[in-house]
């Protein structure tokens, strides 16, 4: 039967074929005696299967009553489930909020520092611009003690300024991004498990 359409006859019998495939099978069946015979055989088998009766079971109400008696007393807590569910969805929201807050704070701090540098603002509280401060305290200290001087002192000041301003921002953003990606990965895995009901497999 391999030259014929034997592999599609089951799907044809079950009404599962559409479009071109259906047309092809019907066209083939119109001409092929062997496939017609095969289809009749499948129809006969299906009819034979329908002849097997099911016995009389106990009533659904009785099943329900018996199940009810056997149900564990541990009732799923709706409140607990809702709290967990809300908490779960709050994770990405919180991460986004933290990211926006840090980015905004950093931006505002930079702007204030720049405004202060141009003399547009005076008496800015230190805490507002401390995060963006580019001052190189440690390099200056090392320079005062004569440990660093000349080009090496300038490099040390640049590196320290970079470390004090940019590295914390990168660290924050990478951490938040990693947490967010982890949440997405867990959400995807959880969704897939729930969708397929795999927890029910033994």
């Amino acid at each position, binding site marked *: 039967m391999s030259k014929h359409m034997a*592999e599609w006859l*089951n*799907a044809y019998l*079950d009404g*599962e074929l559409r479009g071109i495939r259906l047309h092809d099978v019907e066209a083939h069946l119109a001409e092929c005696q062997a496939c017609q015979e095969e289809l009749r*055989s*499948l129809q006969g*088998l*299906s009819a*034979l*299967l*329908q*002849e*097997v*009766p*099911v*016995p009389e*079971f*106990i009533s*659904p*109400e009785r*099943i*329900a*009553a*018996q*199940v*009810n008696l*056997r*149900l*564990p007393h541990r*009732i*799923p*807590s*709706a409140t607990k*489930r809702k709290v967990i569910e809300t908490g779960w969805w709050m994770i990405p929201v919180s991460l986004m909020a933290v990211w926006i807050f840090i980015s905004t704070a950093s931006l505002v701090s930079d702007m204030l520092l720049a405004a202060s540098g141009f003399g547009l603002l005076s008496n800015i509280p230190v805490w507002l611009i401390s995060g963006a401060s580019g001052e190189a305290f440690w390099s200056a200290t090392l320079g005062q003690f004569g440990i660093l001087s000349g080009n090496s002192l300038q490099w040390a000041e640049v590196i320290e300024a970079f470390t004090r301003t940019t590295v914390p921002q990168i660290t924050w953003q990478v951490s938040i991004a990693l947490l967010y990606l982890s949440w997405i990965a867990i959400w995807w895995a959880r969704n897939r*498990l*729930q*969708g*397929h*009901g*795999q*927890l*029910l*497999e*033994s």
Partner: protein
Amino acid sequence: MTFPSINETELVTRAQNGERNAFSELVCIHAQGVLNVIYRMCGDTQVAEDAAQETFIQAWLHLSSYRPRTSLRNWLYRIAVNSATDVLRKQKRILPMAMEDFYLTDPGPGPEALFSQREQAVLVQKAVLSLPDASRAVLVLREYEELSYHEIADALDIPVGTVMSRLNYARSLLRNRLERQSRLQVEAENV
């Protein structure tokens, strides 16, 4: 269906919130289908009733993981098939017809009985029970519950292509076994 007017989604939500009465109503709605599937899988009334109860208890325990946008019937059928398979694994008495047993079955008292509908039904049922679990599950859901290929794929968590191949295999195997059984019957009559 005992409560046709009540929205099933609402019942599920109430059951997920711990309402036993709502869950009982869902049991009433789906009990017959679940019993049929398990009986077709294992061929024993008492075991089917026990396994159906087990199915609904498992459903209750895992109801929080069920998403109402998918078919509850298909979800329950999946648990039912798993329950039936578990029961079959634990209680070897139910599946009496291993393939060898099937072929060695006493051909019966005579041609009259052989061709009686009841005898034929018994033979067909034995042939179905002799199929591998995975193929039998697909065959049962298609032939007796009339699920579409996509619904079977959803219920058993397998691709549609696998549904097709398992169904082809099950029907082919079933035909071969029934034909062989038929030949044995004829030979037995001629002896």
